[in-house]
């Protein structure tokens, strides 16, 4: 065993992680299922109209169709059985396969969150480093105010205010939706409009999609960028105090080289941690923003599913977010290893 561990540390690490991931996902399903079943409401009521709900035959038919006539435990087992076969079940609202609905909703959120993450990482790390270098100076204070304001502003409120001004009052940016209504989404390759339109060379759509992304992305970015600035500043400051930075300066290296090769590399581990958190948070935290911008992503979908007690859909969201969360954590851990050789061997 020890020999095996020594020989295949990465394989073993991955195996362990996958094991934990599976457990976690089972946990997610159980918790979601239990919670959604604890809600003192009957999904039948929401799915059926007044008249239909008053008709026992229709109610019975609906229950049968969606397996709601089974006892809770049975339903869970059936769900898990289907899940093992890759079947996420059928929406209580639309009777469509959850997998398909998620596949439609997820790219929208990923695109939005992805752009926000890129923006906040680039800006956050850049400005955070600047603030650390300018510690105590005016620009540091200014950045502090800006970044703290970004963290402090209620996102749903900012979304509305931004929408009102940037789109409505000043017409600087296009409004709701992922594209102008005149445009159809590019051919589905990844579901990310920017990527798909670029791949198919559909630049008109690309520009349009980019335009539509701006407003929600800015709103989301403000928060995560604020976070990134604070964290980057702290960890860069810490690194600036390290002897190895002073040693690098003693070698006569150019400031640019010192920042990129020595300082940021040293500060990377905490920064990557925050990036992971931010990305995870964005994926699951876009609910309110998505609703303002009519961005039909995972957040909206989840909100809708939850408010309609669409159990299979909520479960699906839980699983997807769970998988993403686990994936992000795994990537972050692997990146740690990449950045910090000490982690690699230890």
């Amino acid at each position, binding site marked *: 065993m020890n020999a095996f561990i020594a020989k295949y540390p990465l394989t073993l690490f991955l195996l362990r992680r996958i094991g934990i991931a599976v457990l976690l996902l089972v946990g997610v399903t159980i918790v979601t299922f239990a919670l959604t079943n604890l809600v003192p409401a009957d999904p039948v009521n929401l799915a059926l109209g007044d008249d239909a709900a008053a008709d026992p035959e229709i109610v019975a038919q609906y229950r049968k169709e969606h397996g709601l006539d089974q006892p809770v435990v049975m339903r869970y087992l059936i769900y898990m059985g289907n899940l093992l076969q890759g079947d996420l079940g059928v929406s209580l609202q639309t009777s469509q396969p959850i997998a398909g609905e998620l596949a439609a909703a997820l790219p929208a959120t990923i695109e939005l969150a992805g752009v926000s993450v890129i923006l906040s990482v680039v800006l956050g790390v850049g400005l955070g480093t600047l603030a650390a270098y300018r510690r105590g100076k005016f620009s540091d204070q200014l950045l502090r105010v800006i970044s703290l304001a970004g963290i402090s502003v209620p996102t749903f409120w900012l979304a509305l205010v931004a929408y009102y001004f940037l789109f409505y009052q000043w017409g600087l940016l296009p409004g709701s939706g992922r594209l102008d209504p005149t445009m159809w989404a590019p051919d589905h390759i990844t579901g990310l409009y920017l990527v798909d339109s670029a791949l198919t060379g559909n630049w008109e759509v690309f520009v349009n999609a980019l335009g539509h992304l701006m407003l929600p992305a800015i709103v989301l970015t403000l928060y995560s960028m604020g976070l990134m600035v604070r964290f980057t500043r702290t960890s860069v400051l810490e690194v600036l105090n390290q002897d190895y930075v*002073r*040693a690098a300066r003693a070698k006569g290296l150019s400031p640019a080289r010192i920042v990129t090769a020595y300082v940021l590399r040293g500060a990377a581990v905490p920064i990557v941690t925050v990036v992971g958190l931010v990305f995870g948070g964005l994926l699951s935290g876009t609910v309110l923003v998505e609703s303002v911008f009519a961005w039909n992503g995972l957040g909206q979908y989840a909100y809708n599913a939850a408010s309609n007690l669409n159990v299979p859909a909520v479960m699906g969201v839980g699983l997807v977010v769970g998988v993403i969360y686990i994936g992000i954590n795994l990537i972050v851990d692997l990146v740690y290893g990449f950045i910090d050789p000490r982690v690699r061997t230890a």
Partner: protein
Amino acid sequence: MTNDMVVDTTAKLTIRNLRVTLPGPSKKDPRKQILDGVDLTLRPGKISGIAGESGSGKTMTGLAVLGLLPPGAAVDGTIEFEGRNLLKLGSRELNGVRGRKIAMVFQDPSTSLHPMIKVGVQLTDHVRKHLGLSKRAAMAKAEGLLEMVAIPEPREALSKYPHQFSGGMRQRIAIAVALACDPDVLIADEPTTALDVTVQAGILRLLRRLCDDLGVAIMLVTHDLGVMSAVADDVTVMRRGAIVEHGPRFDVLTNPQHPYTRELIASLPGNRIADPLEHGNADEIPDELESAS
């Protein structure tokens, strides 16, 4: 070797009346006087030892030479190197001197190497910048350097990370980094404090050889008078930011003038050793470093 062989070579680096103050904990607090009129001369092929109590400003003196004092430091005096006052140089010019002409080995080997960058890169990036060598040539030079400081398997060592070496090896790598551009002046800040005696002995030999063979001017900071005695040509004793005693090694160690120096020397455990000569002689022990190069 004896102390009276001091040849008056021209000074390589001259520190005159160096004063450094640092801001206090807050803006209103008075500034702290860190260095209070330090004079020091480094000569090629000579090791100038600096001793002194902890916090007396030994490290700060070294940092001042390279312009690496903490932010907010106010410096006064002159540091003359090759006809220029280092304190007056612009940052670009200073960068040309740092690492190239004047190099420094920092007090703690485990923190002065970047833990996430391969040794090879840390050994070569300034070489490539200062000497304009290609990556390949720089690596070849680095390999030679590692060999010089007796790192086994130097080629493989280039692609390792600092944590993969022992403390002694890391200290030697740090020295190699400092020597990479063939500097004229080396500031070694307690290069052996963290090491045990056997490893320390090797490093002391290396320093000595650098002086003797390459004519490097070395400023050796240490609070260990044993080390001082072993390699320094002359000794400066500092206390509270000022020099309290200066002179040739033998004189200072055997006939200290200042009460502080006397106190230091009186309390050495070595002075309780009956007869030091009894315990082996340097010449009897095979010199690994020498045979390696």
